[in-house]
């Protein structure tokens, strides 16, 4: 079953509401043992990098997650800061990320922007598809998605970049490596594009 990891970070309810409307069974896991035998995992997240990874560690999710994702190859999506903690390190903090996708989290370069507010990158932005993938079926790149962040994921391997978005510079708005997906935007708050993406993840 699709299992949403609830470690006190991110809009769990909004993701659950979409699966409820789609009549797709899901469960919410608040303890590590509850993600064992999940068929799909969703890792939301908001806030600072270190604070987010600490919350995950405090509840003891990391070891179980490592095992499910790296050994059992359970598909997982990280959303917003949930995506950023998939990286190895971040400019925003000192703690080690999960490291499921090779890369580093950096602050958005605002030197080219000339109107306030420069940060956060807040609102609806389009995406450009870098690599065709079934999870992007029925997504309208022009309409794009809802974003709210000040840092972005820089992939070490450009082949892991699914989509890019322009703000200050061009950054990876979606990444994918094998069974691991990361989305910088909020599919749970992005109308039909977001619903389609969560549906594609459930069905593939």
């Amino acid at each position, binding site marked *: 079953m699709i299992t949403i990891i609830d470690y006190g970070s991110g809009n769990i309810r*909004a993701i659950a509401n979409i699966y409820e409307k789609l009549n797709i069974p899901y469960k919410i896991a608040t303890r590590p043992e509850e993600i064992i035998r999940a068929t799909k995992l969703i890792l939301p997240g908001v806030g600072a990098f270190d604070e987010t990874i600490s919350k995950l560690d405090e509840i003891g999710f990391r070891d179980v997650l490592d095992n499910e994702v790296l050994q059992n190859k359970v598909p997982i999506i990280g959303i917003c800061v949930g995506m950023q903690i998939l990286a190895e390190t971040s400019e925003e903090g000192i703690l080690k990320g999960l490291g499921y996708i090779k890369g580093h989290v950096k602050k958005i370069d605002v030197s080219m922007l000339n109107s306030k507010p420069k940060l956060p990158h807040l609102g609806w932005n389009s995406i450009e598809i870098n690599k065709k993938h079934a999870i992007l079926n029925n997504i309208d790149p022009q309409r794009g998605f*809802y974003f709210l962040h000040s840092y972005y994921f820089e992939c070490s391997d450009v082949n892991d970049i699914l989509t890019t978005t*322009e703000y200050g510079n061009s950054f990876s708005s979606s990444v994918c490596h094998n069974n691991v997906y990361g989305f910088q935007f909020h599919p749970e*708050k*992005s109308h039909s594009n977001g619903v389609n993406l969560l549906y594609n993840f459930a069905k593939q």
Partner: protein
Amino acid sequence: MLRSRIIPCLLIHKKGVVKTVNFKDPKYVGDPINAVKIFNEKEVDELLVLDIDATVEGREPDFEMIRNLAFECRMPFCYGGGIKSVEQAKKIISLGAEKVAISSAAISNPEILRSIGNAVGFQSVVVVMDVIKKNFFGGYEITTHNAKKSSSVKLNDFLRTIQQIGIGELVINAVDDDGKMTGYDFKLFDFVREKTDMPMTILGGVGTLEDIKMAIRRYKTLGAGAGSLFVFKGKYKAVLINYPSFEERNYLYQV
């Protein structure tokens, strides 16, 4: 390209959606859930829902209503009205709202914003400032309780305080223009834009999509809020929930 957010603002009075003029004479325009369903179909950028009874009646936010609205919303949803404590803010976020809007509690004690920010994340903390023109010579006053109470807080000081706390967004509501549909008060918003760096949403006075286009041209990236425009149609103000299509919006973004 990042698009400015065009944000319908729904006022809740006696469990219905209403529209006011100068914060008075609420006219019933429909059922909140029904309005959200229509705004879902129209794929609105974001939704701001303000319960205008809660603070005046001195009661808690209506959590059941918030739960029902959050269940429907497929877009970021900001709730405001009667939020006085960290616990209330946490509960509203846990029900699926994206942001909590705080007004009177923040004006009487800005430190509450820091506590709420630490609990739910500062990106989710929105301040709503109801502002009236003080006199003919300029100068503005911050009000609370649906503009019935004036506060002694100076606009300049308050902006500095919330900027320093680092809230996620500021909504400036121009009371004098509410429901008039005669255009935005750019003088007020220019002042706030100059003094602050945070995301800003402006509200009050929008009569046409051209008003929104003008605001986007002026500020480049902003939240352009409107009430009447998205619930009324035509010069006799017939009730009709509406929102520009994606193509119409693309025209508004061209500056």
